[in-house]
């Protein structure tokens, strides 16, 4: 008797679930028919996204569109794009992407719609207001494929108290940087003079400003590898040497920004070169123990001057397969308007509009020394912080190798020669 009922109940439950499951499967697909059009926007987790998200109702009210927002971490976002765009999806309309990491690949594969006409259409929106370095990175084969929204420059983070204790001015040249790192390390047991990213791939972007300041670059004018040039070798040896000689004890060669920033914000390093977009990690007492003594300065000058990168870390593009490209463009136009760019920038996200930087309001929430340092970087900054190729992840692994060799005390010149050959192989393939 008992078993009988067990079986019967199980069958009924199973049937119910089957029916319910089929229903959910069917209803889940319904999307944009009926009523308002739905615009699907895919964004990265970022302060920029938080601010835009809070303003979305304004956009929806003004246009009558419904915005469906998906948000992911940067690596998850990349995975999404690689799978979905490869399958020719039309379920993404507006996409936030990294022009330097993926822009060339996406544009070459035809994932990104040509926006050349859209950007010129509205004089009030003013395309010419966008800084030329970032714009260059969102242009492919003469066609505009993205609108830069967030820019990034490398600056020097330093501890005012430690420099004052050593009786030193803020370093303005590479020699002064080294001397300051040495003095801080000697005077403060347990505190590193200098810290920066050490991971093979992660360090490449922050090493790039050293490379430029020593007069080098990843690729020369003829499109060949330039990382075995005397300037590049000098830069590798200098960057690695700073960390080896004046860096933290037993330094890991796998640090990206979260690890390096943690060392700095815990008060265990005096000088730190890093992207300015991370400055809130250092100035916010919630995450930093040195929030009241942190200062900012432009990249110290090397033999080639003080040349930092000035890059668009993120841009907005439109999926070439999107059925709503006009609506998608209206979203981009709204999100990148001068008014919103100003608001986002005041929340701590450096934008790409020149007028906002020139507006005192635009830097009112920034530490004054940081605003000045950024201004220097934007003036003569280089528009890329990693090799501009299609296979960026592979290229970063290669050009980053001599950095790690230099940090561990190996022969970085030989490593640079070897890396250059491998890098040339990637360039020849493309």
């Amino acid at each position, binding site marked *: 008797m008992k*078993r*009988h009922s*067990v*079986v019967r109940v199980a069958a009924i439950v*199973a049937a119910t*679930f*089957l029916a*319910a*499951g*089929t229903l*959910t*499967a*069917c*209803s*889940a*697909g*319904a*999307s944009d028919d009926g009523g308002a059009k739905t615009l699907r926007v895919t964004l*990265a*987790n*970022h*302060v920029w996204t938080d601010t835009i998200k809070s303003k979305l109702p304004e956009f929806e009210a003004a246009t009558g569109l419904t915005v*469906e*927002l*998906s*948000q*992911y*971490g*940067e690596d*998850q976002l990349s*995975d*999404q794009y690689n*799978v*979905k765009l*490869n*399958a*020719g*999806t039309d*379920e993404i309309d507006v996409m936030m992407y990294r022009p330097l990491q993926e822009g060339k690949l996406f544009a070459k594969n035809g994932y990104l719609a040509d926006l050349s006409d859209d950007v010129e259409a509205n004089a009030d929106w003013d395309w010419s207001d966008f800084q030329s370095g970032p714009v260059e990175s969102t242009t492919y084969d003469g066609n505009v494929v993205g609108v830069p929204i967030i820019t990034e420059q490398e600056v020097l983070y330093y501890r005012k108290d430690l420099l004052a204790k050593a009786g030193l001015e803020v370093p303005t040249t590479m020699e002064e940087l080294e001397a300051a790192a040495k003095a801080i390390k000697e005077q403060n047991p347990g505190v590193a003079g200098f810290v920066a990213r050490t991971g093979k791939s992660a360090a490449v972007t922050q090493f790039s400003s050293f490379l430029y300041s020593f007069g080098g670059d990843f690729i020369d004018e003829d499109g060949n590898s330039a990382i075995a040039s005397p300037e590049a070798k000098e830069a590798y040896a200098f960057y690695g040497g700073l960390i080896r000689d004046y860096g933290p004890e037993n330094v890991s060669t796998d640090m990206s920004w*979260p690890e390096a920033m*943690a060392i700095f*914000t*815990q008060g265990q390093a005096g000088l730190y070169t890093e*992207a300015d*977009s*991370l400055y*809130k*990690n250092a100035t916010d*007492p*919630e*995450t*930093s*123990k040195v929030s009241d003594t942190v200062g900012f300065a432009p990249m110290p000058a090397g033999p080639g001057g003080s040349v930092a990168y000035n890059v668009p*870390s*993120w841009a907005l593009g439109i999926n070439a397969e999107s059925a709503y490209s006009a609506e998608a463009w209206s979203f981009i136009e709204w999100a990148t308007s001068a008014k919103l760019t100003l608001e986002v920038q005041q929340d701590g996200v450096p934008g790409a509009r020149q007028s906002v930087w020139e507006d005192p309001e635009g830097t009112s929430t920034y530490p004054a020394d940081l605003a000045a340092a950024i201004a220097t970087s934007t003036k003569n900054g280089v528009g890329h912080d990693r090799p501009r190729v299609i296979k960026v992840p592979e290229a970063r692994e290669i050009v980053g190798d001599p950095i790690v060799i230099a940090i561990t005390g190996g022969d970085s010149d030989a490593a640079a020669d070897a890396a250059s050959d491998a890098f040339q192989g990637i360039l020849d393939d493309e």
Partner: protein
Amino acid sequence: MTTTLPARPVIETPRPVPTAPRRRKPRAYKIFRVVALTLTVLLFIAPLVWMFIASLKTNVDIYDASKTVFFTPTLDNYDNVLSRNNYFGFIFNSFWVALLSTLFSLLIGVPAAYAMSRFAMHRSALVVLMARIIPGVSLLVPWYFIFANMRMVGGFGVLILSHMFVALPLIVYIMISYFDSTPLELEEQAQVDGLTHIGAFLRITLPLSVPGLATAGILSFIFSWNNFMFALVLSGANTKTLPVAIFNFVSYASIDWGSLMAAAVVVTVPIMVIALFTQKYIVSGLTAGATKG
């Protein structure tokens, strides 16, 4: 078995032991066992303890080595995860997908396993196993393509189907070995007494297989609960599961470690509770049929 353990410095005894030397061995063994067990447990539990402790710290304290053990605990992270970021929604999504994919897999997989076991369908079993051999990531693009064209991406249906794809072979294989070990004579007896083939399966074999069903069900539930890759691509804004939602705390220019750890606790605790209460089934189910021969 009878080899003498070398004398260990651990068992230093201040005065001569009054008991006979024969009892020494078990005692040394006991101490060794306690030490080994403690070390092993510590090793396995340390990351979990660290995760839990970190979830009660502020972001600046997490990095502070001097506050590893002593710190002022805060519940802000949990508040952030559960109320401000609405993790109950993600918990429901994970639970719903795991439950349904497990139930459907059992519904299809158990009869299939029964047939494969009783009729020795080894080749069919091998085909089912193929699903586990092919790396899931290579299926993602074609799946996405098919499901996107069916307008199913972003719904629960597609998540359940994709999780079933991995759960089914697991269930089929566990159940095949389980059915192999249940005596055929019982079913024959039932048939002699007037039951049909299916009747014998439903009323005799199935009730006897509850431990196996529990094992297969729990393992498939755990798999689905933890699955990240399929959910990442196939879920939508409203159907995100917990492992995907956890990444909400990793931003481009900031990582909220405290909330990340709190969210990790939220993901881990339910599955740990389930595993704790059902582990006797898992163990007995896994070894079922192991000594058949």
